[in-house]
């Protein structure tokens, strides 16, 4: 949480739209961050409903520009750890005890085909529709920075194109607009656009990570930590990621 505060401050300092921190305190051992109020909506389907095709493009351009600023200008907070996403989630898969042949094959193929890493940057970690505060069709703030890390920035771009974050919409990015729209704004903002093979590797890592996160949520239920039918059934969402991973491996 303290690291999250550092990231928020550094991101704000270079103009990434974030909630502006005004205070920070602890209740028992829990850190609480207080930010200035940001007007707007985060609910994906409501945001999608309220935007026509043109304003959807505008929103995704906002996101591309913000990501470019984050990845090219935001200073690394001292305590922000470098995380290799693939290695971390392969370890989590193996720690989960789940036997999933497709995920094992994907892990092996992803390791075998790992492209050279881009220049490391502050990565948000969950930069998707749902974590964008949107008002009148414009991006007001990016929230939920608890997965922020120092790492390969292409991961942020790939993550927002995963199927679960399309919420049934037609566009590749958050169901709203095309990857080209995202890339164009990202390039104009100074970001380095990955080539398509590198991008699809990162997208496949995203599928793998999301699959392992689904396992983790299901296990939160099964272990008794948080009993809930919602968490339980998320375990069945692993399959849809596996099918997409097979498509990637075949390509």
């Amino acid at each position: 949480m303290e690291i999250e505060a550092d990231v928020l401050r550094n991101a704000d300092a270079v103009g990434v739209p974030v909630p502006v921190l005004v205070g920070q305190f602890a209740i028992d051992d829990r850190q609480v961050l207080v930010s200035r109020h940001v007007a707007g909506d985060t609910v994906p389907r409501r945001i999608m409903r309220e935007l026509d095709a043109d304003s959807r493009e505008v929103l995704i351009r906002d996101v591309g520009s913000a990501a470019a600023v984050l990845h090219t200008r935001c200073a690394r907070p001292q305590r922000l750890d470098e995380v290799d996403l693939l290695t971390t989630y392969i370890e989590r898969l193996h720690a989960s005890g789940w036997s999933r042949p497709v995920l094992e094959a994907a892990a092996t193929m992803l390791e075998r085909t790992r492209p050279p890493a881009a220049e490391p940057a502050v990565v948000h970690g969950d930069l998707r529709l749902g974590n964008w505060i949107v008002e009148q069709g414009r991006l007001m703030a990016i929230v939920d920075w608890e997965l922020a890390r120092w790492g390969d920035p292409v991961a942020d771009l790939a993550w927002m194109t995963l199927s679960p974050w399309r919420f049934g919409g037609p566009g590749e990015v958050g169901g709203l607009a095309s990857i080209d729209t995202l890339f164009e704004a990202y390039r104009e903002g100074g970001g380095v656009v990955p080539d398509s093979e590198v991008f699809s590797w990162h997208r496949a890592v995203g599928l793998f990570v999301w699959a392992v996160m689904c396992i983790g949520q299901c296990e939160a239920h099964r272990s008794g930590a948080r009993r809930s039918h919602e968490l339980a059934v998320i375990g069945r969402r692993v399959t849809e990621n596996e099918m997409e991973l097979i498509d990637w491996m075949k390509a």
Partner: protein
Amino acid sequence: MSDDAVGIPSIDELLESVVEWLRSEVVTGSDATIAYRGRVAAHVLDLVRREIADGAAITSRRDAILRDLMVADESELACGIRDGSIPIDAELLSSLRRLTDDRLRVDAPDQRRRGGDTEAAS
């Protein structure tokens, strides 16, 4: 699948009746959180109904695929892939696709219908 052992209404009819109640009264209710959880609950029961209907056929197809790959179960397959003793080649990927496609019938039939290059598995 054998005929329902106990009688009428069948397991599927009982589950369906609960799904209908969830969708008609819980999902439409005024409490947004309960409505959402009700929608998820109906989704869970529909998934269970699909598994009850197709589970036996899926299991027997899975066992045949695993036999062809000369492994006893998916755990052995996963371990073999992980330690490299089972190579990741076209044959393996085709087997994995058939296994996954069958799982999708239960877990996410909508995606199965959408999937462009999903081979027919049966």
